[in-house]
């Protein structure tokens, strides 16, 4: 009975008892969730346009942040460093398209997937080789991002909101909005959706697949840089992030591989769920459950809805 009480009653009693703490946990979950969403967004962009499951997205986040910090460390002004980091991501996108995607066109998905694992290994090695393996701190102030915090009085307690977190959420929202407009209103955006629907048909109406792929990888690179800045501002810039970035996979399972809103909602669900579970239920299991909660949630979810929250039901044909 004690066990049942601890699982089903006690956590909620705690939540109701200290609402300020509960809100703080929710806020933490929201911020983590935003970052998961952003990583997942990069995956979705690439998957939609090229059908490639880009395992290297997490590394791209680290790589982008490292280049930014690295350029700044060389004495480049912050905004110029930002620009140069974007240029690095563009160069990466171009190289990936030239060296990998173009050569592997028409190969089975699993081969492309493995190639991106190879890419992520290469980028880890390259990043550590150039920038060194030790963690670095993000140049938050130099980029003009807010660093203070606001304390709000709630229900007899306080909730602390870091300004950088608020900025992160805002930037994420702007990024998503910007991408949505880009895809629905511009010529390239239309071409991109055409490619997502049918490669062959897109080719036949004169859309250059290679160009589209490079653009999409660059877009994913921009998202990666934004994610990297935000993540770096909260903790350090280090390759430890790659393990965290893998959590974008369960996010995609929940949201579906091709849905942008799905990536965002999936990210938030995982973010909230993970924090709440860790804080209120984790101690029952001995703590440290954040490492696997997202995956197990995705696994259970898959058993009931293999196509994701927003995916269409799969009708198999023979």
């Amino acid at each position, binding site marked *: 009975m004690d066990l049942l009480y601890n699982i089903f009653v006690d956590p909620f009693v705690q939540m109701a008892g200290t609402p300020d703490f509960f809100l703080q946990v929710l806020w933490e979950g929201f911020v983590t969730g935003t970052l998961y969403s952003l990583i997942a967004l990069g995956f979705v962009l690439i998957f939609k346009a090229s059908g490639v499951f880009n395992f290297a997205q997490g590394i791209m986040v680290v790589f982008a942040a490292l280049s930014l910090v690295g350029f700044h460390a060389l004495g480049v002004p912050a905004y110029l460093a930002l620009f140069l980091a974007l240029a690095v991501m563009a160069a990466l996108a171009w190289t990936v398209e030239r060296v990998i995607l173009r050569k592997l066109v028409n190969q089975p998905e*699993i081969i492309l*997937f493995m190639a991106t694992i190879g890419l992520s290994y290469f980028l880890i090695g390259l990043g550590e080789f150039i920038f060194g393996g030790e963690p670095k701190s993000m140049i938050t102030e130099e980029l003009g991002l807010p660093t203070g915090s606001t304390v709000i009085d709630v229900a007899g307690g306080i909730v602390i909101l870091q300004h950088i977190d608020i900025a992160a959420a805002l930037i994420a929202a702007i990024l998503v909005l910007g991408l949505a407009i880009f895809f629905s209103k511009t010529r390239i955006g239309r071409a991109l959706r055409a490619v997502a629907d049918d490669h062959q048909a897109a080719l036949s109406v004169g859309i250059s697949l290679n160009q589209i792929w490079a653009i999409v990888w660059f877009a994913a690179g921009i998202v990666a840089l934004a994610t990297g800045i935000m993540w770096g501002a909260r903790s350090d810039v280090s390759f430890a992030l790659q393990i965290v970035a893998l959590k974008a996979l369960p996010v*995609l399972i929940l949201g579906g591989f091709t849905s942008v809103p799905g990536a965002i909602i999936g990210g938030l669900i995982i973010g909230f769920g993970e924090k709440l579970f860790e804080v209120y239920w984790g101690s029952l299991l*001995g703590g440290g459950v954040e*490492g696997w909660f997202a995956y197990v949630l*995705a696994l259970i979810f898959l058993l009931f809805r*293999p196509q994701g929250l927003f995916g269409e039901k799969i009708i198999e044909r023979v």
Partner: protein
Amino acid sequence: MFYREAGQFKTNYKDDQAVFPILQDRLAIGLFLIVAFVAIPYFGNDFFINSMMIPFLIFSLAAIGLNILTGYTGQISLGTGAFMGVGAYSCYKMTSIFPDVNIIILIVGSGCFSAVIGMIFGLPSLRIKGFYLVVTTLAAQFFLEWCFITIGWLYNYNDSGAIEVPQREMFGIIVTGASATPVTRYLVVLSIVVVMTWVASNIIRGRIGRAWMMIRDMDIAAELMGVRPLQAKISAFAVSSFYAGVAGAMMVFLWLGAAEVESFDVNHSFLILFMVVLGGLGSLLGSFMGAAFITLLPIVLGAIPGILGLHINAAALEHVKFMIIGALIIFFLIMEPHGLARLWAIGKQKLRVWPFPY
């Protein structure tokens, strides 16, 4: 010139179904076994045996395990590291619960535990495919890693959280523990790997292996031919995890001597996946080639600067290793998606018709 099959006629289907229908192949295998069982223990020094041959063989077995799942059944897994961990921890527990049982039985028996765990995490594969399955195997990886840390019972509540291998003897010879000689451990590893490879090749050639490949190539058609997807996939998960588990147990008991959870982390899952991809999906020989490549590459890379008279620090070398492995993976996928094993087969075919092109 010497590799010819002309004149070797098969007069019944039994001979034609043999593992190595060509005489020269049978001779080559025999030669390999003699070298492995006699020449290497006799001539090899401790460094060669302990740092090259033993890890090579152990990772080959793990790669065979993953190849059964990914190469033969078409189910991608990123949980191999954790399944190896299940083998290692269950072997450790069994040595403390049954101290008198022969260590070889315990090592092979520990594979059963990881087979059961593998089956449980393989259940979702019935409903989900491809990348979705990657996530469920990652769930296994991270959940099991957490178990290895959190459940103190698994490592007998050690302060260090590590499992340390007790000394065990067999026929009066020390097999495990700090005082076991590399040659003894090598011979034990080699025997287990040879027997299990032979068994794997038999399963793959038979009814069950064919069912796995049917599922891999065209799961719908396989089901319409009477293959039960659940049975085929779960059996592949079980056999694959069994192999990974035995490899994990051997890794701790016959190679490292002690291990923590880091020995079974997701990076090991990646490494073994790389071995399978580089070596060749769906090839036992490829599993050995891939394992040799990935385990020996760091050693070769480490030796190069010394030979050239350069001084590169260890960290930089490690980074270069990552870059080279990554680049090679991409290179191989582009040039030869079927890996080293296919290159080998092409070479053999060329040799067969040499000096003529066809």
